[in-house]
């Protein structure tokens, strides 16, 4: 079946002074009979938000999962600061934080416990820091409720809290705006801006505009190939 080329290198500004953090080269992924993308290359310097957009089912989530190292691409290679992530999986994983469709919280644990667990897998934090973050995302009053009773939007906010505490250089966010109210969406925009300002970088799959400052923004438009 025909499979057109990805458009990964379009819209890339040359930012000579910046370090290239991540490079993906000639990625190709099939799902059953469908080629989701082929020859897709990405170059991600620091202080960048890569906005991945495209119609439903075009492979945004699959691409993000490949970039995380969750899925194996058919072809191609991903490098983090020049080193293939296949050889340095754990190093790479410590450098990024992933927010998928599923939040990854246990229904039986409280918001506070979930946050403590997620963060403690990555680094040591004290209660105060965690409480501050819970306050920032507006979950103070719900912090001791089990996640089972939290609304979808509240879980999304908790997810954001883990991302903020991860101290990761690269954020990979899949549809972060889902279920969030206007205030929550603005919060993500603000977070992305300040993340870039402090030298970080992010890959965000979303249908809507991210609203981040133009100088940080890059686009990757994916096509539906079915």
């Amino acid at each position, binding site marked *: *079946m025909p499979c057109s080329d990805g458009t990964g290198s379009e819209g890339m500004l040359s930012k000579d002074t910046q370090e290239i953090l991540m490079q993906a080269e000639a990625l190709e992924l099939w*799902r*059953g*009979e469908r080629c989701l993308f082929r020859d897709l290359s990405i170059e991600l310097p620091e202080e960048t938000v890569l906005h991945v957009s495209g119609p439903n089912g075009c492979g945004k989530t699959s691409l993000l999962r490949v970039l995380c190292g969750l899925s*194996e691409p058919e072809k191609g290679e991903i490098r983090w600061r020049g080193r293939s992530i296949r050889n340095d999986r754990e190093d790479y994983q410590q450098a990024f934080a992933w927010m998928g469709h599923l939040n990854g919280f246990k229904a039986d644990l409280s918001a506070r416990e979930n946050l403590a667990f997620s963060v403690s897998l990555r680094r040591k934090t004290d209660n105060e820091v965690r409480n501050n973050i819970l306050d920032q995302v507006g979950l103070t009053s719900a912090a001791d409720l089990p996640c089972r009773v939290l609304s979808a939007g509240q879980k999304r906010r908790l997810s954001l809290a883990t991302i903020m505490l991860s101290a990761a250089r690269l954020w990979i966010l899949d549809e972060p705006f889902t279920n969030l109210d206007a205030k929550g969406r603005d919060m993500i925009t603000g977070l992305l801006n300040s993340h870039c300002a402090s030298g970080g970088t992010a890959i965000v799959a979303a249908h809507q505009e991210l609203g981040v400052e133009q100088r940080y923004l890059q686009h990757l438009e994916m096509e539906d190939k079915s």
Partner: protein
Amino acid sequence: MWKSFHQFASPPHFYRLAGYLIPWFGVAALILILVGTYGGLVLAPADYQQGDGFRIIYVHVPSATMSLAAYTLMATAAGIGLIWRIKLAHAVAAAAAPIGASFTFLALATGSLWGKPMWGTWWAWDARLTSELILLFLFLGYMSLRAANDDTGKADRASGLLAVVGVVNVPIIHYSVEWWNSLHQGATIIKLGEPAITGDMLWPLLTMMVGFGCYFATVLMIRARSQVLQRERNSRWLKDL
């Protein structure tokens, strides 16, 4: 060396090579099995204890050997596929499983047929029969896991992992069953094919074993070729064929 290995592992090359080899192995299997059958059923003398009943070993022993060989081959191919990401190796492993399961079933069926006149029962908890039974379940588990995965790539890797773990376990299972059996039944039961065997009984057996081996290779290549066709249905070399 490495390059030629990968070249061999390329689907088009394998497809052509197997297509060339299949008739040769097929004819060899046919001749050897015919000769072995004649030798085993007609030329070989009857066993002084078991009479003509012993002649079933000419099917039983080769199928039991082939069942183990098939499992080892399947696990080796799956291991190669997992380590070096060679899809052809996974195709070979997938092709080998049903053949191996059939050989295992044949070994169990013939063992049971032999058991009726010898032991007076269709099934005895003989060490080898029990090991074969567990082997059958290992094959069935591999095939079910493969069938449960919709995605071929995932099916390859998951079932391949199971085969590799299984092949480490097979000697342990075999040993434990032998030990269990020796503890409980002693040497009262005659073990299949174990009594001293004379030359004119032996050569048909060896012929049958080689014949079964050739037959296995033939069917394996036919099945692997169809696996390759299925997996490569979108590729260019196949459309040029």
